[in-house]
């Protein structure tokens, strides 16, 4: 009993140090989206190609990948080639569809971005005043959301997608749910 305080004191010091050591692994930028596990916000928004507006509900029944980008965003350039490849690879799947949301951008900017880097072939929402982006809780670009066939957000990727992302992250989630 007499030496109890010594044990407690040293344990507390060690526990705090260990906590810090483990805490160093945390990434302060990795903020979980409160949207994950909840229904994705619905939208019906104008398209970058001036075609008919893009309606969120029309994707029901299929997995939906929503990629937020802008021509002003440097990292979006980095993931763009992967997006083109992913769109090509998944073109045959009828349970999977991709769209882009070009936000905080001008129409000319968004179009010349696609023209110079290549158009992945799927449609893009044009969201200059961030109506959609704010609804979805986007705070940077690029950000990508995986929405399940019932309209529930299953995953949020902050930062660019990378080679193998679909197989490592998206497929396991898609296959887990019947």
């Amino acid at each position: 009993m007499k030496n109890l305080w010594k044990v407690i004191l040293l344990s507390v010091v060690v526990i705090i140090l260990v906590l810090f050591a483990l805490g160093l692994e945390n990434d302060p930028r990795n903020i979980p989206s409160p949207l994950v596990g909840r229904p994705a916000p619905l939208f019906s928004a104008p398209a970058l190609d001036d075609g008919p507006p893009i309606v969120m509900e029309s994707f029901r029944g299929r997995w939906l990948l929503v990629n937020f980008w802008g021509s002003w965003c440097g990292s979006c350039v980095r993931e763009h080639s992967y997006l083109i490849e992913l769109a090509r690879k998944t073109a045959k799947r009828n349970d999977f569809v991709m769209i882009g949301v070009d936000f905080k951008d001008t129409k000319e900017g968004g179009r010349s971005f696609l023209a110079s880097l290549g158009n992945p072939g799927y449609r893009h929402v044009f969201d200059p005043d961030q109506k959609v982006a704010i609804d979805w809780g986007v705070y940077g670009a690029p950000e990508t959301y995986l929405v399940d066939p019932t309209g529930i957000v299953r995953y949020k990727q902050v930062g660019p997608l990378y080679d193998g992302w679909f197989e490592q992250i998206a497929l396991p989630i898609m296959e887990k749910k019947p």
Partner: protein
Amino acid sequence: MWIEIAHFATIVALLLTLLQTSAPVVGVNMQRPVWIRVGRQASFMAAGLLTLAIMGVVISFLNHDFSVKYVAEHASRSLPMFYLTTALWGGHEGSLLFWAWLMALFTAIAVGWHWSTHARSIPWVLSILGAVTSGFLILVLFLSSPFERLTDPPFDGQDLNPLLQDPGMVFHPPFLYMGYVGFAIPFAFAVAALINGRITDEWILATRRWTLFSWAMLTTGIIFGAYWAYYELGWGGYWAWDPVENASFMPWLIATAFLHSVMVQERRRMFKIWNLFLIITTFALSLLGTFLVRSGVLSSVHAFASDPGRGVYILMFMAVVLLFSFGLLVFRADRLRTEVRLESPFSMEAAFLFNNLFLVIAGLTVLLGTLYPLAVETFGSSKVTVGAPYYNKVFIPIMLGILLLMGVGPLLVWRGVQMKSLLQSLTKPAMVGLAGAGLSLLVVVNHPYGAITVGLVLFVIHAHMTDVWHGIKKRMSNTGEGMTVALMGLFTRNKRRYGGFIVHFGILMMAMGFVGSGLFQEEKNLVLAQGDHVVIGRWKLVFEKIIDVEGKNWKAQEAVIQVEGPAGAFTLHPQKRVYQDHQMPTTEAAIFSGIREDLYVVLGDAVTETTWAFRIYRNPLVSWIWNGSGIMALGILFALLQGRRLSRKIAEKGTVELERGT
């Protein structure tokens, strides 16, 4: 050129601090005093060289030498001269160099000062302080160097973050650092005493002024930070329980406990282990604060550049210091058992014991609130923040308990009073307090905490005044002096005690400010068109127009608002500033500060062509916080004037073994 000189000086200073760490240990073990003197010279030279290094960086700033990375990132050609100088601590790298410089400077002063009076401790003090300084210098030189050059220097720098271009922010960091670093000296003396194994009370006496000084600096630093948050950040408040704020508050709480409990050791030779624990914890928490701020383990509104590499190093450094010093304490504790026991629960020492318990528990609650989000994130996956609701629930009751003790304290004497006489002397202050609480509940205050605080404040004031009054009366009858002379005599005879009283008055005033602004803030969010008016409290505000204004390195939109109120009519000019080279606009709140309340107006965004968003706050009693802190500062200064008289008195009694010089 200058930056290379600074870099070289720092490298040599690192070598010297390593010498300062090792030479005295050799000297003690081989019984060769010359090695201890080598350590002393090394510490002097390191202090000089680091002064040169600091000058080198400052001169690089003044010369607009943007080929220096640190200068390019934290200054620009349009930055005013004043901020150009203080940009030294505007960033991580410079702050750390500044830390190391203060450390070396304080070491040199302490070593010069205590060289002959504390010869037995000095070698270890040199060694410990040298180790801490070299730890910081390694960080500066290898992991966050402010001396790096850019191969392709820009024409102009990126400028200092506009939020930091404010007088409050200029003084906040250096005072905080002086506080943190200042506690290193008592810490070193405490650890030296533990290593020596001759734990007399001399370390406490030696470091009393250092402790007071560091506590004063830390207090001032925290207040400057709160003041800056209030005037610059434009959210109507001054304290957000942010992890980085807590990082400075925790050492303050523990240091405050230490400040009180050392008196018990001086007078009654009790609490020896406890005092060592407190000072080690204070310094450990200072390091912890640095770690939290600089490693990025906690996300905080302060959002400093974080870097895991630095984090790992600071953590290792902290682990060494903490395990070494706490380990030493545990290892040596048995030699320190005191035979003196508490004689009465109604004694001064018991009051200090409770004061300490409350303060340490307060520190623990802040620590828990700070670490809890980290633990949740590490072992779970979700992010949580602990904010005002938690602290309001657990922290305010503890603080009210401390206020109560503050009032009881002066009524007690060492070794204890009779229960009956205590009750007798408690009656009057308690009645004044209760009456005040009841009255305030009836008149203005509609919140229990508010009423309790008012009552406690009156209770404490009455108790302190009674004590002073008794002192004066006694003196008048003993010496036949007049009242004013007796008051002066009383205060100057025991500057520490009455300096403490003045500090208490300052704290009471601040407590009123916290209650007023915390419980009775009124906030209005609205959209105004030109010519609209709004009424808040006793004030009527008319939004006249928006004009464009310009400063040396910023442009702003400024709202002109006519105010009519009890203090007459005046105009307020809240601004939305955009600094050159920066995208983000900053808000410059317009504040009318009065004794009763502050009127605080923030200009928001334009909603349409002709309407603007405004946030208007009525913040009661905020100026009491700033004025109270001023009184506190006066009290501390007064207490610092106390020489070594008390210690000599104790020394003559033979309770202290003063050591003669070599």
